[in-house]
């Protein structure tokens, strides 16, 4: 491999994604690096709960399986792994991976932990210093919040990834490094890009990272533009970007795997979770995607270029998780005849039971599966059209303050199995009681408050 180009694969799109596509890429030596994004907005809340239960946890636990299955193959073939799966506990994640690799006789591997994004213990301090942590959308000060914070992490950039790679890391387990910055870090290291340098190159690196960060969603998964899909979904090949020094790239996928790489699949991933395409904000650079060129250049080969960069935003984004209460849900299904009318009768009975028992429910929502289950308030149910439906489902969802309330509420309506409308099925446990209801508070903090740390251990 020369310095002219470098191959980076998107190996995982979320915490819990299958490692099979990345294993196939590692086996076929089809990439120089595999990036794994594990931290969706919600994931840090889940990891915080793990860490509260056990101070050794708080990282994305699928790295334990990856350390048994994927990493040894990748390392053997000279492929490096770069991921933010370290979550809230990158040091413990690194120790765990070292231990699992060591147990397999894979020793001498340099594993880097990147920390410094965790802000949970500093919220009071920064408010005392005069930052009121105003909500990014509403402008409300954080002091107006009545809920307890669960986690607080700052989205950080590519610099720590560059540093870890320059120290020879084979595996990088970062905290809240922003998803596309993992890829930019690899490119900046490989090509020697200055992170205060050519903005177009930096922006290109971010855009490539954005296209890789959701794994199979760039290569035929979840793609309306390819419907009806003429390819296999069971063994989707994940995206691989061969990136040149100027920041342009050619995207491919393994021939041996399913899925598809096309202008359409890549276009769909490009728009995903983007707001203003001329100003996609990241810690390292503001990205202008409006002049990109995406072209089919061969069988499952798509070229990507034309990304422009603008200076990075002045401040960094901090997201604070807030514990609002609990959510509980349950499902019922009604058969023909009168399916919809029976569903209405059922909802009425449930509301009366809960009211009669004085169960402390803050809010209740229901949907009719088959009618407005997915699209809710966007659907006007035409009652003349629902008379003859084969079946209708009911989903109940309640919000409550106390974890015990969910179980109690659902137990109190089990009696409707016998006492309810005729022709109904349900089972306790179809819906989950008392899951945490979290809201996220996005705000901004000064860059100089954040100091990232790279620590390397060996397996």
């Amino acid at each position: 491999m020369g310095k002219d180009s470098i191959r980076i694969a998107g190996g995982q799109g979320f915490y819990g994604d299958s490692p099979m596509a990345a294993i196939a890429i590692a086996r076929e030596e089809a990439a120089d690096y595999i990036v794994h994004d594990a931290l969706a907005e919600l994931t840090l809340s889940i990891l915080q709960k793990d860490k509260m239960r056990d101070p050794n946890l708080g990282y994305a636990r699928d790295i334990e399986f990856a350390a048994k299955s994927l990493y040894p193959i990748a390392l053997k073939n000279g492929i490096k792994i770069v991921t933010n799966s370290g979550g809230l506990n990158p040091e413990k994640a690194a120790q765990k991976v070292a231990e699992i690799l060591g147990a397999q006789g894979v020793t001498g591997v340099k594993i880097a932990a990147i920390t410094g994004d965790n802000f949970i213990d500093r919220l009071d301090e920064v408010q005392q210093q005069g930052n009121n942590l105003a909500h990014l959308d509403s402008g409300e000060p954080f002091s107006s919040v009545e809920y307890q914070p669960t986690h607080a992490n700052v989205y950080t950039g590519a610099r720590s990834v560059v540093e870890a790679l320059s120290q020879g890391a084979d595996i990088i387990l970062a905290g809240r490094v922003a998803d596309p910055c993992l890829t930019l870090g690899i490119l900046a290291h490989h090509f020697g890009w200055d992170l205060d340098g050519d903005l177009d190159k930096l922006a290109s690196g971010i855009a490539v990272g954005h296209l890789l960060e959701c794994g199979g969603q760039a290569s035929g998964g979840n793609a309306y533009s390819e419907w009806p899909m003429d390819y296999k979904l069971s063994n989707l090949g994940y995206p691989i970007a061969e990136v040149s020094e100027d920041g342009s790239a050619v995207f491919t996928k393994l021939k041996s795997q399913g899925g598809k790489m096309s202008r359409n699949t890549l276009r769909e991933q490009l728009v995903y979770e983007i707001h203003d395409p001329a100003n996609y904000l990241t810690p390292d650079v503001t990205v202008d995607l409006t002049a990109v060129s995406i072209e089919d250049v061969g069988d499952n080969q798509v070229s990507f270029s034309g990304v422009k960069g603008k200076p990075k935003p002045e401040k960094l984004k901090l997201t604070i998780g807030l514990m609002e209460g609990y959510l509980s849900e349950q499902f019922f299904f009604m058969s023909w005849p009168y399916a919809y009318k029976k569903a209405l009768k059922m909802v009425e009975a449930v509301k009366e039971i809960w009211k009669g028992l004085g169960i402390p429910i803050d809010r209740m929502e229901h949907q009719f599966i088959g009618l407005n289950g997915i699209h809710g308030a966007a659907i006007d149910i035409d009652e003349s059209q629902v008379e003859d439906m084969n079946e209708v489902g009911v989903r109940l969802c309640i919000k409550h303050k106390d974890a015990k309330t969910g179980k109690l509420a659902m137990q109190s309506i089990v009696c409707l199995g016998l006492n309810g409308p005729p022709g109904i099925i349900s089972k306790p446990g179809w819906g989950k009681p008392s899951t945490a209801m979290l809201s996220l508070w996005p705000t901004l903090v000064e860059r100089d408050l954040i100091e990232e740390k790279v620590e390397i251990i060996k397996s």
Partner: protein
Amino acid sequence: MSNIKLLDIASARSGDKNDICNIGVMANSPEDYTTLVEHLTADKVKAHFGDLILGEVIRYEWASIEALNFVCHQALDGGGSRSMRMDTLGKNFSSHLLRLELEV
């Protein structure tokens, strides 16, 4: 004047950032993109979603990939981890939008 379904001239993908849902709409051809730019307005999108979107809908034109991007505020019941809907992340906003009919 005739009616065309968005499904017949475009594809769509939607996703979440806290309480904001964006829906990217990709035209099937450059001609279809011209139709989208002319007829698929932010107001029409907002009206199509009724009370599912409580805030503003902003439209961005993205000519290089023949796409429009709709950024819908206060669209996800407060955000994925607190939403009481089934589609907590708005992944199916794309599907609902594709059902829209345009008078052209």
